[in-house]
């Protein structure tokens, strides 16, 4: 466990696998900004410790991964947890997160006479409004991401990923709103939320 707390590469690699739930070495390398060979060596080390398994070419976290990451995060992120500015921004994030989930659902489903039906995306004006709302919600994460990046550069990767997804959406690639198999706005948001909770040692609420 100590190695995970002191070795940034191992922490970042296992953290990424845990956030993505299932990831190939290439995906981990891109997300961590590390050479693939370094990631593969880290995956081997982590597998030897029983923290992940490789199945079908992808790494998946074992039951031991979350507790190990939680213990390592407690040692690594004492300063973040004590940062009053981060604390204040996180309180506001909870509200933004609820609005985000509602907005994402309104992208998938529309209200027709009190009944939720699948959004067939034929109403461009409606879709544009939802996208504009997502854009605003992402912008509201800015100060928190910046404050966190001051503690760990990893949090500096999220704005770039959001920007990339939004640019694709602007170009008409609307699957970058919510597709679970792309680096979509929903996926990036979800990973950030999990990363944030782990960093701060908090639990997800229902």
């Amino acid at each position, binding site marked *: 466990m100590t190695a995970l707390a002191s070795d940034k590469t191992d922490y970042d690699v296992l953290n990424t696998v845990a956030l993505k739930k299932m990831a190939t070495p290439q995906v981990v390398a891109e997300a961590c900004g590390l050479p693939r060979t370094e990631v593969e060596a880290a995956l081997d080390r982590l597998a030897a410790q029983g923290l992940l398994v490789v199945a079908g070419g992808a790494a998946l976290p074992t039951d031991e991964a979350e507790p190990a990451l939680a213990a390592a995060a407690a040692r690594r992120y004492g300063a973040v947890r004590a940062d009053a500015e981060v604390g204040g921004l996180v309180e506001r994030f909870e509200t933004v997160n609820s609005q985000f*989930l509602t907005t994402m659902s309104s992208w998938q489903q529309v209200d027709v006479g009190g009944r939720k039906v699948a959004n067939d995306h034929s109403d461009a004006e409606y879709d544009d409004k939802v996208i504009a709302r997502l854009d605003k919600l992402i912008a509201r994460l800015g100060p928190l991401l910046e404050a966190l990046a001051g503690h760990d550069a990893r949090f500096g990767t999220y704005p770039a990923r959001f920007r990339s997804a939004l640019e694709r959406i602007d170009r008409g690639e609307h699957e970058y709103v919510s597709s679970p198999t792309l680096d979509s706005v929903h996926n990036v948001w979800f990973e950030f939320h999990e990363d944030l909770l782990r960093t701060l040692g908090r639990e997800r609420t229902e």
Partner: protein
Amino acid sequence: MADVLAEGYNVFDTAKSPSGTVKYLESPADVIGLIQSGRLAEHILLVQGGTTTFLAPALSMGAIGVITMSGAPESHLGILSREFQTPCVMTAHLTSSESRYVVGNTDPSHFEEIAKALDGRKVRLDCTDHEVGRVVADD
């Protein structure tokens, strides 16, 4: 009419009505084991929470149906199930029991009762109603 074992929120209306043996998944290891068994498509997956994020690989690998014992359709898992078009009944309760999930105030016995009643049962999900998702006996 077939025996309705449990009811909950229907995450999205669908004519898909998957049938399979309920498999209760408690941990990431259970999900990994199921994926590795190659028998994912034989099971309706039962998990405790809508925030049970370890279920994501099962959805991407072709899970046919999901039942949760807590959580809302607006949650991450709800969003994922709509994306994958995997029928999903959330915050299911047993029709034979008075016990209900209450946010932040649910005794573990509530979840144990549901898991005990459903795990291993052959069921079918009925997700045609716009509000209520049903777990119907199929054995």
